[in-house]
């Protein structure tokens, strides 16, 4: 109890907790869950965008998209490494995801149907992710905070790139602009759901806030995101697919009702792509098993040979 008090005092003083520091089991568990979910999201998030690498409409866009997806993989790697500092192995975390036991961001259960979806993902999905992640750069757990600083830097680059794709479409042909509007229509509501359930229904926030893992509520972040996004959409000349969206006296854009039942269904595995995402990851994992085994076998052989040489 004394250790717990001292721990909380360090948090309150905005000190960083590092891997070898004492921490409450619940703090560790919360972080492992959150960081690994975040890592899984980066990895599963490679799939909807990866779906357009081979069909990108110009070589410049193809290279940028490939680099972006590669960055996401890199984010996954840092985040698994951050989770490993808490004693969880990447292998067990990945296994939990492949078994359908660990979550990843529900947004990646929606399909990318047209090239404009790649623009919208950069603009809105990465935009929402940044909104969620900027406060995490000051998270109490040091390795997570440092990973987030690096991730946020790259994400904001992706976000600008996505917006630029949208801008090109909106200044393009009538068909391109319609494609941009259609993508916004399909992604808008799922993106708002990325901030999680409304505050009155949220589960983890209390302790996460006390531990300075979470610094803003879901609704606060959602509102910040909407306020930042609506003017961007206006600049693009796109219509928000929310007929009830209005600006209030304080200048905030207020959204209409969100279909939380859809969110619940996607979390329950019934989103449009949940099965496809998991099966793609499972297939990659299963197909790659022999490669990982070969690498391990070779590493062992080599170590044995070096030992034998050293012994001579």
């Amino acid at each position, binding site marked *: 109890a004394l250790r717990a008090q001292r721990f909380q005092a360090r948090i309150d003083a905005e000190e960083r907790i590092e891997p070898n520091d004492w921490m409450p089991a619940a703090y560790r568990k919360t972080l492992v869950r959150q960081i690994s979910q975040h890592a899984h999201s980066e*990895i599963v998030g*490679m*799939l909807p965008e*990866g779906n357009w*690498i*081979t*069909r*990108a*409409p*110009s*070589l*410049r*866009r*193809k*290279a940028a998209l*490939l*680099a972006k*997806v*590669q960055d996401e*993989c*890199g984010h*996954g*790697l840092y985040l*698994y490494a951050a989770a490993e500092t808490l004693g969880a192995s990447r292998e067990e975390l990945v296994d939990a995801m492949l078994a359908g036991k660990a979550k990843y961001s529900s947004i990646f259960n929606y399909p990318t149907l047209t*090239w404009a979806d790649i623009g919208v993902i950069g603009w809105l999905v990465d935009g929402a992710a940044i909104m969620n992640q900027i406060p995490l750069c000051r998270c109490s757990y040091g390795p997570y905070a440092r990973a987030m600083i690096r991730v946020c830097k790259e994400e904001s680059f992706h976000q600008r790139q996505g917006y630029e*794709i949208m801008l*090109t*479409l909106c200044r*393009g*042909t009538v*068909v*391109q602009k319609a494609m941009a509007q259609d993508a916004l229509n399909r992604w808008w509501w799922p993106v708002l759901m990325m901030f999680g359930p409304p505050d009155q229904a949220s589960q983890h926030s209390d302790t996460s806030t006390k531990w300075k893992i979470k610094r803003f509520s879901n609704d606060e972040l959602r509102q910040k995101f909407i306020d930042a996004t609506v003017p961007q959409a206006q600049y693009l000349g796109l219509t928000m697919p929310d007929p009830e969206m209005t600006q209030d006296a304080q200048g905030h854009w207020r959204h209409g009702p969100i279909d939380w039942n859809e969110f619940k269904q996607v979390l329950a595995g019934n989103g449009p792509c949940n099965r496809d995402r998991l099966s*793609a990851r499972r*297939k*990659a994992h299963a*197909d*790659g*098993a*022999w*490669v*990982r*085994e*070969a*690498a391990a*076998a*070779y*590493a062992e*052989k080599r170590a044995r040979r070096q030992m034998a040489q050293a012994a001579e």
Partner: protein
Amino acid sequence: MTAPSITVSETPLVLYTLRRADDALILGHRLSEWCGHAPMLEEDMALSNMALDLIGQARELYGYAAKVEGRDNDEDKLAYLRDVRQYRNLLLVERPNGDFAQTMVRQLFYAAFADLYWRGMMGSTDATLAAIAAKSEKECAYHLRHASEWVIRLGDGTDESHARAQAAVDDLWAYTGEMFSVDDSERGLIDAGVAIDPTMLLPEWLSIVSHVAREATLVMPENDWMQQGGRDGRHSEHLGHLLSELQYMQRSFPGATW
């Protein structure tokens, strides 16, 4: 309206440059197909990285080909609006990814060549090609290292990985000869010092590849019949399917800017 295929005036230098551009694009495309599906995350990174290098090389080469041609073609028209018979890449690079061993052996065979090739091309009398060569050589040296390490791991790993790696070597061997072939249109460029003679690279390529194979406990094939055709647009059936994917957007949205 740009959906139909373009025509390209294939002067020797345009053709020469297009051939190398197509090699880089098609191999880059194949590697990019792994993205999100690799055997481990580190390989998702590495394969994407190599794909990016190759697509970057392709862009510079297409840009130069368009410039030399001097019409209104550009990198995207050259990549997206030529049909299968106009593509000039080696048959090797269009081989399907197959399993990871096939991909890595293909990469070894190509990168071992490309590294030597670009090193030689750094001395080209064509300043643009020499500059592209300097950058490409560094990239291909890394690709070669990465592929060699994997081929050794797979060859000298488990029984299964050994068998797969050996099968890949046996399957892909017949596509390596085309890298060292020279036709009349290239002969003049070689004589002018614009291009190097690839036949000169064969002994060193063989030595590099044999060395890796030996380390990997793999046997080099004895079959010395080599497939040809890619340089003249006589491809395998695989390329058409790749192009239908690669080119779909540009073919479906004629004249749009992305």
